[in-house]
């Protein structure tokens, strides 16, 4: 045997999973298992926040404004629809990349990021309207719970937008070869998760009557 290179660093590099099905014990790549584990942890994060909101959504001393007094359901439904559509464009981006159409894929990724950004813009607008109507973080437990829960979700969307833009940049610079298509799939897992959480948050926060 001459010089023998033994591979060690299974997955620690910028998401190279060499093959569509890397030969790990389970056949699923390390990065993908890691993302699933992380999302499991995120469920408890949002679970704790949603429970807090449930507990507090009606806690407002008399004479203070609470979230349910201010909701603009048609507006938020619109921005929710936009966010849900971004899951579709995310899927299209992955499918284009898998077919080798990298330019098209980055267009879809950018579209996804823009839709996410529009959702965020809607949230900022909504927050500013609520503040003008007299409901701030300090108003009552219900308002605190509302801002922290939806704000936490918004932060997750913002991180997702950054991630998508980074992918667009990587494709533009040719740093994302075909073999690394799974990077897009994993970013997509995160993105879809954030969307699914919004479905729950929208239902719990906006649609369920007091």
């Amino acid at each position, binding site marked *: *045997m*001459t*010089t*023998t*290179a*033994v*591979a*060690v*660093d*299974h*997955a*620690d*590099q*910028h998401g*190279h999973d*060499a093959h569509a099905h*890397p*030969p*790990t*014990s*389970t056949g*699923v*790549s*390390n990065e993908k*298992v*890691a993302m699933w*584990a*992380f999302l499991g*942890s995120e469920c*408890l*994060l949002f*679970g*704790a*926040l949603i429970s*807090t909101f449930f*507990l*507090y959504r009606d*806690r*407002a001393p008399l004479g203070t404004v609470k979230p349910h007094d201010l909701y603009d359901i048609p507006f938020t439904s619109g921005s929710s629809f936009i966010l849900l559509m971004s899951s579709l464009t995310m899927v299209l981006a992955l499918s284009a990349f898998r077919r*080798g159409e*990298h330019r098209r894929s980055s267009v879809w990724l950018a579209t996804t990021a823009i839709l996410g950004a529009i959702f965020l813009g809607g949230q900022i607008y909504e927050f500013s309207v609520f503040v003008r109507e007299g409901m701030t*973080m*300090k*108003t*009552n*437990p219900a308002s*605190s*719970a509302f*801002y*922290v829960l939806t704000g*936490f979700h918004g932060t997750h969307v913002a991180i997702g937008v*950054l991630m998508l833009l*980074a992918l667009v940049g990587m*494709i533009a*610079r*040719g*740093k994302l*070869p*075909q*073999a690394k298509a799974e990077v897009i799939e994993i970013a997509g897992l995160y993105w879809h998760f954030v969307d699914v959480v919004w479905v729950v948050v929208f239902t719990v926060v906006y649609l369920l009557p007091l």
Partner: protein
Amino acid sequence: MTSVLEPTVTTADIRPIDSRALSRPQVNTGFWSWITSVDHKRVGIMYGVTAMAFFVIGGLEALLIRVQLAAPNGRILDANAYNQVFTMHGTTMVFLVVMPLGAAFMNYLIPLQIGARDVAFPRLNAFSYWTFLVGGLFLYSSVFLGGMPNGGWFGYAPNTSIVYSPGHNIDFWIGGLLLTGIASTVGAVNLIVTCINLRAKGMTWFRMPIFTWMSLVTQFLLLFALPVITIALFLLMFDRNFGANFFNPANGGDPVLWQHLFWLFGHPEVYIMIMPAFGIVSEVIPTFARKPLFGYPVMVVSGIAIGFMGWGVWVHHMFSVGLGPVSLTAFSISTMFIAVPTGVKIFNWVGTMWKGSLRYTSAMMFSIGLVAMFTIGGLSGVTHSVSPHDRQQTDTYYIVAHFHYVLFGGALFGIFAGIYFWYPKVFGQILDKRLGKIHFWMWFVGFNMTFAPMHILGLQGMPRRIYTYPEGTGWEVWNAVASVGSFVLAAALLVFFYNIRKTDKKHKREAILVGGDPWDARSLEWSIPSPTPEYNFIESPEVHSVDDWWHKKYTEDSEGRMMKLPEYDEVLASGNKGLEPGQTVHLPSPSYYPIIASACLMLAAYGLVYGRSSGANYLLCVLGIGLLIATVEAWGLEPSTEPHDSLDDPDADLLFGLTPAEADRVLAGGHDTPALGAGATPEEPTS
């Protein structure tokens, strides 16, 4: 050994360095090699050493407490200082000692026990360690910045809200716990993936060593428990920094919410602390009883059961809150039930020792100590599950006695068993047996002297967290005994440190070499030389049964008696084999980014603390997060080795996606390197 491992790089291999700010460092020895290391073994050692340093600090705090309470009207500390000391004692021991000591063992051992060459994400592993370290330093920096946290390790709101704790003490507590929480969450993801994906060929779930199993359960508990306290800490931070009302009763906030969130984390947390110790003694006892672990599958399943049931008992920390008879009954019953899988473990350890040929090494003594002491702690735990009884005990020293019996008598006894057991594997030296026994007996006597009297003190009605007490309460004698005991414990720890020093001198003086398998042990980590070579295994092992290494050495005769296999000596010798001349092993280069990323987080944490005094300080957060994003970007684009060797052009980076199994195939086939690349030919990069 290391000389063989020096990268075989000539100048011809070095390609022009690209424009990245920091190329991967290439030092293998000295200070910077530790700062930049991504080797799971070094990370494990750093976890262990750091946690030991914090153990000394937390221990000194404990001594302060005991000196203060040794006699009535103690005047060493005033009330505020006492609050800081007991808060930091608890916080340190939980977050900076027991958890990271567990992490030290898990980092070092999991890859070895499952036959892997490293954890799934080596750089993230280093990042976990550095984030834990900066979290600890951040917490203790409060000493110089206005005072240490003083709200108890449980941080009950609204006592910790801004009205009652206007100083920065609690802000440091929040920031420090958020940092260590990030460290543990990242570590949990990493080690879970490692256990799931990097097992050697043939290592099915029920062939996995018991320590790795218990670690896996621990990591799942961490994964799901930490987000809950993260949210609790965030809510408290929003209350303090931004005037939110989560725990503000004046405005309709509910203090009980904090208790639920904290204990929903806090109870799994106690299993997070004890499970690694259970795993350790489950490895030590079979080795020194020279019998297989009694009921291995039952041990695994009861560990998993504890992991699940640990989520359904948190309200027993809140029996005196007044939650109503239904929840009290339900949680009383669930708390009694969780004693069942725990009891199963105790019986199985006893069953393992039963009729074994016991060898009373230091590791074995500490393990037996765990079985005995944890049983006492477990039984006093069952007494609090009876909620009317708990009303009598809550917030008394009886509780203090109970949790020290499970966490000191359990976790710390187990961890020291592990230190004595794996010390030769990690450092290539066997700790002195006589000093080990002196350590054990002083530890055992000091422990019982300190904490057994607290049962009585508690039943006499001595409340927890009081900084002093008047004469004539009847608490004087037992408090004095406990204080003497705490100094015996401190002396025992000094014996341990002396042992380390003496052993090191002796091994160096007499040039003693420890074989790969000094204890005639059972799992894969003993099938390689001691100390573990940088590359772990030359070839990825193939596993045929649980305790695979043992079955390579021993078999049973027709009457079920253990006997050596004829190839025993040959197998043992194979375990001491290093690389042959000319063989090199490809390892990932160290990296600067993990420590940089951790430093960014620390910066952001200071921003959170001081943002409360002046909004401009939040710029520190912005700066920290901004730098973190830049770091993550650079981290993501970092090549796996530096300088690139001939294999490592951008496409052949893919080589490193190979698993041990795949690398093994290449080894077996005797292909030379180009064939490696062929297996992983990437598709055409496009741009």
